[in-house]
């Protein structure tokens, strides 16, 4: 299960993400589930401001929010690290060349206590892909920086018509803990 960090703020991380999405009028949320994102996804579903649904693949979710953006509706995709690993083609052939401000939230697995070797290796493909495509990305580890990073970066994404990826570190979310 996800846990909040011992940061001073009174709100858990997922409430801050939800509030920041709302403040920036990001209404469409498409996701492929991840355990750590459970409470964020549940809270988004429970809030009528958002249109929220699961896609069968992360690429599909990217297609949906790209279409929505072009038609005037802001959207974000939620996924885990292994989901990001399915995306280089969609990012390189649609999002990046078309300059679509896609917002991606990636729950980071594969590090800081990963117990699945496959997850650990998949995670290693993420940053090289982001670097190769020069896609703006932030690894968020600190609760007190979360709102600032997400809010400013969403505004930058729309202002500059560029995608942005938020990597939610286990330091922020608590990650997935190995039940030994």
């Amino acid at each position, binding site marked *: 299960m996800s846990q909040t960090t011992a940061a001073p703020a009174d709100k858990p991380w997922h409430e801050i993400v939800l509030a920041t999405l709302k403040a920036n009028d990001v209404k*469409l949320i498409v996701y492929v589930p991840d355990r750590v994102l459970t409470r964020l996804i549940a809270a988004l579903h429970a809030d009528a401001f958002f*249109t929220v*649904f*699961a*896609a*069968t*693949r992360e*690429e*599909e*979710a*990217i*297609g*949906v*929010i*790209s*279409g*929505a*953006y*072009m*038609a*005037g*509706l802001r*959207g974000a995709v939620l996924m885990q690290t292994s989901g990001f690993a399915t995306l280089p*083609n*969609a990012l*390189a*052939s*649609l999002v990046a*060349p*078309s*300059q*679509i401000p896609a917002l991606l939230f990636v729950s980071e697995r594969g590090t800081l206590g990963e117990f699945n070797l496959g997850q650990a290796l998949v995670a290693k493909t993420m940053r090289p892909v982001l670097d190769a495509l020069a896609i703006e990305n932030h690894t968020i580890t600190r609760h007190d920086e979360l709102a600032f990073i997400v809010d400013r970066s969403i505004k930058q994404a729309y202002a500059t018509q560029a995608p942005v990826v938020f990597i939610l570190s286990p330091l922020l979310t608590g990650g997935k803990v190995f039940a030994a």
Partner: protein
Amino acid sequence: MSNAFHNLKVMSRLDLTRRAVALLKHDEAVIGGIGNANFDLWETGQRPQNFYMLGSMGLTIPIALGVAIAQPKRHVVALEGDGSLLMQLGCLTTVAMQAPKNLTMVVWDNGIYQITGSQPTASKSTADIVAIARGAGIANSAWAADEDEFEKLMVRALDGGGPSLIAARIDGEPGVGKTERDPVAIRASFMRGIAAKK
């Protein structure tokens, strides 16, 4: 194999694309899938409400779904190849679940990956695209037996009772048009065409 869909009339993608576009009277958005689907769409005239995909094979229907959700009053038509749809079949289940009334999916089934050398797709022999779509939950899914029926199905789909899927058996000809390869220009023109940008 003796599936019913093998007895359908084999038609022309360019001809059917022309017929489909001619039925659009309300600035409907059209998403042309990778390769031949958008080449023939381009050939029918560059409506500002057309979006031409230069890559991202299989994402035609997801993109169209996003447009349909964002603009529920505008009808959206996705033109997709059989091979491309087979790559992203899961999207049909998402469309069925979201059930946008303003989405029509047209599948050009030539039974091949024409543009990469005409290798056979599963729909050449064993897979029935319409049966798959129905199984995914798209109740309004039908094969067009001929050009007349294609037009009738299009008219009914554009009426807004959707989502609908129309599949047409087409020949193995390549697309005719030469889409301009400028993704940013295509995106900006489309956004203006559907009033999402000044």
